[in-house]
């Protein structure tokens, strides 16, 4: 009786143990000459491109190194990668979030410093800034940035005899003309997704008023406040587009906007360069322009957001191979290959890159003559409670939906920021 009662228990214990051991055994390399690197990224949608084009190109020039692309869904990326690294199972090469999130990861000791790398030298300081530690040490090799712009339907512009606006006033006149004509929605824009009001509108039209980096860095070092006239003006420009939104815009989501534009029912779509393939998928003739300045000849500011970079996991056992991979990311061979496989993402390297996609080239041309600036609130200003970026999403929605004024909006945001952010003087 005794024996038969305990036997299943023992069997259970043995099975559990065996399963556990099997789990551990998987993953250790068997060929001593070849090294397998894992890349942790949030770009699930690029898996085919990496696996079919980019990784083979790397492997061809670096025999003995195999690279495994290991994407995690964007929304779960931060939490998943943090728990992987804390649990000692992190990938060898980690895709770095820009600014505050990455700074927190640097503080946690996730990354190996990269100041010795040749690849780092091939990027301008502005490209590296999003991934540096507090002391300026680089921790990630920049891969790509995204730009913001206004896509326009060239056929509609031709039909109504409109030209690409050169000033803010002209922009509103163009929108008025489309509105008066009545056939098309002037702006394909909804406020259901707060993030895109901030990223694609406010951070795009606002920098012309708060002078791009001057205003952004001013907020960070505490010499400027959101209640200053320049910022209030930036929020006012954002507010001036309210009258051109389609009916029911309060519940029009990001996907709806894109669809409205690609179906040819709207003339202008404020969006990021990452949507290039999407907006041209229905065969529309699409052009793009940047947020125009107040008057002709004024300095123009163009949003360029550092988006992707790769860092080296400090706990990696394959540091040598991983370093080779990171060095390769700095080469123009990689950059040329990458940006043309993925139109809408732009090289951050110092050397000019040719873009095969016409619209991507048009986007890249927007950088010429413009001062580049990052999204307003992602650097340091969102590292506490309430995070300024989240607050801007909310307040931007309130401005469009409930008529919150630019003065009220900026005062509310500054109060939130004051509650935790004390810049080092």
């Amino acid at each position, binding site marked *: 009786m005794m024996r038969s009662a305990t036997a299943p228990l023992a069997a259970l214990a043995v099975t559990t143990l065996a399963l556990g051991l099997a789990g551990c055994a998987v993953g250790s390399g068997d060929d001593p000459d070849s090294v397998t690197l894992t890349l942790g990224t949030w770009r699930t949608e690029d898996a085919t491109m990496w696996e079919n084009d980019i990784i083979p190109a790397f492997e061809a020039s670096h025999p003995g190194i195999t690279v495994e692309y290991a994407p995690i869904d964007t929304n779960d990326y931060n939490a998943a990668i943090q728990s992987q690294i804390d649990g000692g199972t992190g990938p060898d090469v980690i895709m770095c979030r820009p600014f505050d999130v990455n700074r927190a990861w640097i503080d946690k000791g996730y990354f190996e410093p990269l100041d010795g790398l040749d690849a780092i030298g091939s990027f301008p300081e502005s490209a590296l800034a999003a991934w540096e530690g507090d002391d300026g040490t680089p921790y990630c090799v920049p891969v790509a940035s995204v730009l913001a712009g206004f896509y326009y339907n060239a056929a509609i512009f031709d039909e109504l005899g409109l030209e690409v606006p050169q000033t803010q006033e002209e922009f509103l006149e163009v929108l008025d003309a489309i509105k008066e004509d009545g056939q098309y929605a002037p702006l394909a824009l909804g406020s259901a997704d707060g993030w895109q009001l901030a990223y694609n509108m406010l951070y795009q039209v606002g920098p012309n008023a708060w002078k791009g980096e001057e205003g952004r860095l001013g907020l960070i070092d505490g010499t400027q406040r959101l209640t200053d006239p320049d910022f209030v003006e930036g929020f006012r420009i954002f507010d001036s587009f309210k009258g051109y939104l389609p009916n029911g815009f309060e519940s029009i989501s990001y996907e709806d906007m894109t669809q409205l534009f690609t179906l040819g029912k709207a003339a202008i779509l404020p969006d990021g360069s990452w949507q290039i393939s999407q907006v041209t998928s229905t065969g529309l003739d699409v052009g793009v322009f940047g947020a125009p300045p107040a008057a002709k000849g004024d300095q123009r500011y163009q949003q360029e957001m550092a988006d992707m970079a790769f860092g080296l996991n400090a706990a990696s056992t394959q540091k040598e191979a991983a370093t080779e991979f990171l060095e390769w990311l700095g080469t123009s061979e990689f950059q040329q290959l990458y940006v043309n496989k993925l139109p809408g993402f732009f090289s951050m390297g110092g050397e000019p890159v040719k873009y095969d996609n016409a619209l991507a080239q048009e986007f890249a041309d927007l950088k010429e003559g413009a001062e580049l600036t990052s999204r307003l609130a992602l650097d340091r200003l969102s590292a506490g409670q309430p*995070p300024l970026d989240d607050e801007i999403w909310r307040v931007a929605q309130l401005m469009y939906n409930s008529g919150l004024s630019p003065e009220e909006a900026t005062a509310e945001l500054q109060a939130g920021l004051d509650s935790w952010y004390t810049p080092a003087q």
Partner: protein
Amino acid sequence: MIRTPARYRLLAMFVLPALLVYVAFSVYPLISSVVLSFFESSGQTSAFVGTANYVDLFTNPTTNARFWNALGNNVEFFLIHLLVELPIGLLMAALLTSGRLRRSVGVYRTLLFIPATLSVVIVGFIWRLIINPLWGLVEFPLLGTEATALPTISLMSVWQYIGIPMIFLYTALLAIPDDVIEASRIDGAGSWTAFWRIKFPLIAPQFGLIVILTYIWTFNGFDIVYALNGSAPGPNYSTDILGTFFYRSFFGSSGQVADLDLGATVASVIFLLILVTTAAYFWLVQRRLKTYEL
């Protein structure tokens, strides 16, 4: 008859595997999450800080305001389920067992239950299209105004899960022996009287269970709001419920660092809230509902 020690061994043999799984995947994570809420971790180190995280949650004006807002929304989310889903579920169960639908009972039962088997993402997507002001049936931005967003989402959820209380109550009603009803008919009771005086008292314990289950489900709710409005559910956090508030604190957002300690604190508070209310309900209400032997 097996002697007692052997009986305990046998009992242990049957219980232990399930118990191990339960402890490993439910009890342990729960306890460790509660433990986590008493620590402050930064980098590789973490220090015991007592109730500091709780104090912070309830005194920091930002998190505090978000918490109460989420709790208030959650109460509304629950009340809409309670006042719409349960009565309609009961009505449908009563209709299904009334004998008036005759042979089509099976069809109705299946149709009403189908939404409960769908994924929340699909339900959210379908409804979002139906009420889309650009190409849907309703021009009013139901999901876009603070006053209508939460009721709209709640009703979508009601639509999806109405089959659950219905099927519970339906089986309870089926269990009532026909002779009890027949006896009441002979005594002169109409359908209305028979339902409220005889059938409902008999299924009251099941109805009470459904009430408390609805409470637990809605206070653990997360998916439908997340699927429709993301983890910072607007407009102006009007659809933020405890689940999304927890998610945002624990996992962070694309531009926000994950704060495990605060997240664990929020999770513990939600757990406590559900535990206390459920216990109070069982103590004060469910115990007093009579179960009749039929």
